[in-house]
């Protein structure tokens, strides 16, 4: 026979999903929420996003090309995704040089220093965000007045921050809530916040898309939401004057963005479904604890990073149910 046949062990066919497809699906799912933030915040939001994405891609390319000396893999879309998520985690008015610095830390330190895609223990976008939050606390918490203002001029702070400050100042939650945007506005995004915090509804649409495309499963996002809902719900029932209601907690701040797009980062979340549930419950509990009793009004970034750190431990000790394993064993 003239022709040489190819030999490989089985299986001989592939499902057809690739790393690229997964990354671009997540990016696609983020487009509605991102577009809405462009509409609300205008040009500054566009500039922030462009700066973030370009910086992330460039940093990865430069490090792979000149330091690691490997074929750059920026086409896989993971740096673009990190860039978008990073931008969605900052206020629209953030000075661009801080954004660039954040991108360098996110991709340079958070991802490439561990060996690149798949090797990093922490979510790179969150590493960048927390770096900026700690290093530039003022710029990172100065939110611009939005174009279609519904809250008065004092609301440069986010609803979560207002509640926290209000309670500290002796006001009761129901009093504070009257000055805040209603649930409909929280859902649609008519209030101040970071780029990606302002529309729970559009983020949820993205989640549905990712669930249908099987990019993510329900385990992480829904468990986080359920944990936050139950935890804040219990507190609300105990003392509604002191604690905001669970729906407010779900719809405000970065919870949706974090639960749907950051906690589900494949690289830094546990492998087994059992492990993912534990990880998600942890994120929910830590988020609420920081929001209510911590130094920051918002806690999901820290919560995810902390649970990222537990992921190897969870992977080691929480095993999927083996076939033939005893039901109660």
């Amino acid at each position, binding site marked *: 026979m003239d022709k040489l046949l190819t030999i490989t062990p089985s299986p001989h*066919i592939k499902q057809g999903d690739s790393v690229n*497809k997964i990354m671009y699906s997540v990016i696609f799912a983020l487009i509605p929420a991102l577009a809405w933030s462009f509409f609300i915040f205008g040009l500054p939001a566009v500039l922030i996003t462009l700066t973030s994405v370009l910086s992330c891609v460039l940093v990865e390319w430069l490090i792979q090309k000149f330091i690691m000396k490997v074929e750059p893999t920026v086409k896989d879309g993971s740096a673009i995704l990190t860039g978008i998520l990073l931008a969605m985690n900052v206020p629209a008015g953030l000075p661009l040089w801080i954004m660039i610095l954040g991108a360098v830390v996110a991709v340079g330190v958070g991802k490439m220093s561990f060996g690149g895609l798949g090797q990093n223990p922490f979510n790179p976008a969150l590493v960048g965000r927390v770096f900026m939050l700690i290093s530039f606390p003022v710029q990172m918490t100065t939110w611009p007045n939005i174009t279609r203002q519904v809250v008065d001029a004092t609301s440069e702070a986010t609803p979560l921050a207002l509640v926290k400050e209000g309670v500290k100042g002796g006001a009761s939650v129901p009093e504070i809530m009257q000055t805040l945007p209603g649930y409909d506005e929280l859902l649609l995004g008519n209030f101040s916040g970071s780029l990606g915090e302002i529309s729970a509804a559009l983020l949820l649409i993205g989640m549905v898309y990712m669930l249908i495309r099987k990019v993510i499963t329900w385990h992480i996002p829904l468990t986080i939401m359920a944990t936050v809902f139950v935890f804040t719900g219990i507190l609300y029932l105990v003392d509604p004057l002191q604690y905001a209601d669970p729906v407010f907690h779900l719809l405000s701040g970065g919870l949706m963005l974090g639960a749907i797009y950051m906690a589900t980062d494949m690289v830094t979340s546990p492998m*087994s479904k059992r492990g993912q549930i534990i990880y998600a419950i942890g994120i929910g509990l830590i988020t609420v604890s920081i929001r209510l009793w911590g130094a920051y009004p918002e806690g999901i970034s820290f919560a995810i990073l902390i649970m990222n750190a537990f992921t190897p431990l969870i992977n080691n000790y929480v095993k*999927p149910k*083996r*076939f033939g394993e005893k039901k109660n064993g």
Partner: protein
Amino acid sequence: MLKTFKIGGVHPAENKITATKAVVKLPIPKTVTIPVTQHIGAPSKVIVKRGDVVKTGQIIAQSSGFVSTNIHSSVSGKVLKIDTVYDSSGYKKESVVINTEQDEWDEGVDTSPDLIKHTDLDAKTITNKILDAGIVGLGGATFPTHVKLSPPPGMKAEVLLINGVECEPYLTADHRLMLERGDELMVGIMLLMKALGVNRAVIGIERNKPDAIEHLTTLTKNYEGIEICPLKVKYPQGGEKQLIKAITGREVPSGALPIAVGAVVNNVGTALAVYEAVMKNKPLIERIVTVTGKSLSKPSNFLVRIGTPVKDLIEAAGGLPDDTAKVISGGPMMGKAVATIDIPVTKGTSGILILNENEGHRKPVLNCIRCGRCVEVCPMGLEPYFLMTLSEKKVWDKAEKEQIMDCIECGSCSFTCPANRPLLDYIRYGKLTVGGIIRSRK
């Protein structure tokens, strides 16, 4: 709600392009090459020599142990030589090469098409006839059937499960068999039930074969104790443990045999062979083979004699296409890629699949993105990414603890990996080494 197994599983494109093609009997080839190792277990011992004249169905190699079986001539003619030739495993195997003269059958073989339904033979005699006829599992694993019918002391079979799942994409040999040989299949199942001493048999068929489900359901009215269990389509439902779980809800424990949960599983092809062996005295000398592939001009289901060159089958299916990249013996998930088509059809050849240049090559391996899909799809509840790393780093004790030996090599992990990682390649290597370590301890 249709039944299926619970943990893991994937849905490869079915590509059953030959599902409607009736089985065609191929002409007997001029020469057959019959390896003496066509089963799991000890190689059979050759009992003919060069120049001997043999008849169709005459024994040419004898079982050499409990887990072994007989091999018969699939043609009548003269033994040309005893040689070592390549088979689909890629290794050279001792084989009997026979030049065909006529098709004169051995005495006592009933070659008539008449259906015989009743027999007074007892269980022991049936099992012995199955051994004599050289019957092995025809689903692809080729485990000697008489061994399955002889449970270890203290174990008792409660139910016979018949595997009509054919979960491998492309393959349709079992599908056609169920449609075209239904009555013989049913009698074969009755014989297996008798041999095992059970009064219940369940045929598991995935619902992508509604015609087979319907046809056999009609036939069950005439055969007491046989039921049909339609199943959801999910790979690897034809895996023994997965099929038992799907039909009975029981899980075979790690390292145990199906009999531990009272089940014995046989393939539909095996049941047909049992019918022919017991009722017609016809040993296992032919089988149905699906020859298929997207670029093939005449994909078909053939009834062929064991030892027929695979080349002949491909010729009959329209010849090897120009854009052929890979030829696989078996299905695309678990079949073996062969280096040459100058190999014989053996008892385990369920299909010949031709993959073209578009499908037949692997893609570059990327970093693991820890997506966990391999864990999600593993039907044994294992962690393929972890087993691969342990095998790569040669951490054998840990690999054993992580139950690497439970892997059934279904390939769902590699199939699904978005980073194209060779998960199963490494796990196989790990199983081989860990298996050796375990045996050396005994």
